[in-house]
């Protein structure tokens, strides 16, 4: 209980935000930070232990493990952020329009969301990737297409309850157009909870990307990505388990940081989790 309490509050938000900044900083600055070329094969150096030259050792093709992890952060975090931002934008706009306009527009959009939600995410993503073929862009598109529905539904429900508030009626009477009401009154009022929920979803997006890469559907070799690295390490699970442990640990830490941050933010703003 005490342990859990320590992970709440302002300090936790600060620590997690800093950690997130560090992750993104490392991802952005990868070419300058990484000591080696992440895709350069050096078979003479394969499966080496930690040394001054290769701090975390090398993999089965003699590639520097640390550099691969650093470059992998670009893919995992970068694409998770892209999925986050794009599905958030689609979700907010669709949710706001559905909630505000109501009627048959609302019915159609929400039935569409329910249709997408009826399938397990992974099945849907596998289906989309199956149609368009494996590759990072396809995975990105697929995840985006399934993630926005959650934002849309949350946003729509919040808008419906906001619409009952009198300031929306007052804005209409003051002569504001529908679009300017959505922009000025609705979106600012749903923003905060949606961003909190988005932070929690960000952890899921990273897991999804890694899972799909692990299955060989995301990033294609020789590029580095944490899920793909775990996959490559499976052949050496007995002799060199660290090849799987490093990227696995990183995924764990990053997802945990996002989850704790999301929890702390939602506690702070008093937002119910879904």
């Amino acid at each position: 209980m005490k342990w859990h309490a320590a992970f709440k509050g302002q300090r936790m938000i600060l620590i997690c935000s800093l950690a997130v900044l560090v992750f993104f900083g490392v991802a952005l600055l990868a070419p300058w930070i990484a000591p080696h070329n992440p895709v350069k094969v050096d078979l003479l150096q394969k499966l080496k232990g930690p040394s001054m030259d290769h701090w975390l050792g090398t993999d089965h093709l003699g590639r520097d493990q640390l550099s691969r992890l650093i470059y992998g952060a670009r893919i995992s975090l970068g694409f998770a952020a892209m999925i986050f931002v794009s599905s958030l934008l689609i979700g907010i706009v669709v949710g706001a329009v559905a909630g505000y306009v109501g009627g048959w527009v609302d019915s159609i959009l929400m039935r569409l969301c329910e249709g997408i939600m009826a399938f397990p995410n992974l099945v849907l993503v596998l289906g989309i990737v199956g149609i368009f073929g494996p590759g990072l862009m396809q995975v990105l598109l697929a995840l985006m297409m399934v993630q926005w529905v959650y934002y849309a539904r949350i946003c729509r429900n919040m808008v419906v309850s906001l619409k009952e508030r009198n300031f929306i009626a007052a804005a209409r009477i003051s002569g504001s157009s529908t679009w300017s009401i959505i922009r000025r009154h609705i979106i600012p009022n749903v923003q905060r909870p949606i961003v909190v929920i988005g932070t929690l979803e960000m952890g899921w997006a990273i897991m999804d990307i890694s899972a799909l890469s692990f299955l060989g559907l995301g990033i294609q070799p020789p590029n580095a990505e944490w899920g793909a690295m775990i996959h490559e390490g499976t052949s050496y699970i007995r002799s060199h388990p660290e090849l799987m442990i490093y990227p696995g640990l990183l995924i764990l830490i990053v997802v945990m940081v996002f989850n704790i941050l999301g929890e702390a933010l939602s506690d702070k703003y008093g937002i119910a989790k879904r």
Partner: protein
Amino acid sequence: MLQVNNVSHSYGRRSWLSRSGTSPRVLTDISLEIGEGCCLGLLGTSGAGKSTLGKIILGLERPARGQVIFQGHDLYNTDRTTLRKLRRDLQVVFQDCYSAVNPLMTAAQIIGEPLGNYERLSPAEQQHRIGELLEQVGLTAEDGSKHPHQFSGGQLQRVNIARAIALKPRMIVLDESVSSLDMVNQSHILNLLAELQSVHQLSYLFITHDIRAALTLCDRMVVMDQGKIVHEADTGESILESEHPAVRQLAAAVLPEHPSRRIAWDRLDETEQQSADEYSSFGRK
């Protein structure tokens, strides 16, 4: 100035999956008229349909039948540009002042919204106008930078009034505008409203369940009960003579200055007295 002709309305549940046929009538055949510079009191217990009528008059909810004619135009049967012009002259002050403002905006932004929609002012001019409006309603120009949660209920209601008069409208619908305030603030706001009315030649539609508040401001009153107009009084005082049970209940619900004496209290039977009691305590929470 404003005419309501034979308006009937009901809230039907309609969606593309289910289409239920019958729905409860909220308003039945309502007609009323408000002249230039007049204040019409619209009284009734909760559920009588007054707020729905208010919404219809404000152009927010299309009535199932009937017309609302404002300045010679039918609100629900006119083109966009005319409607936009009409909207400008027809403003509102709601009961719950906290829900009537966007919690994320400052008072200046709240009051600036109608100005921004209708008048092209430079930022400096706009700020000046907002300052003037705030002073007109008894606040200071510095209050413009405050957020809603920093105001008291009475102050925030003044901000709402400032927004309503920002465009110099011809008519304001006061939807229970003083009911959520305490007695002292109520009388302040009522005085402010009366003052604004004489300065700006405003017409009011004063929706309330509080006969005493209506008596101080209104020169004509209509009483609604279950969606119908049951009583019309040309002078405020004559309403107390009415024999209609709904009117008597409203009159009796007013708490007197001296607890032993209530207006029209003796004329109720026991159950009516009971429900009037419940009602008067309800309105004051």
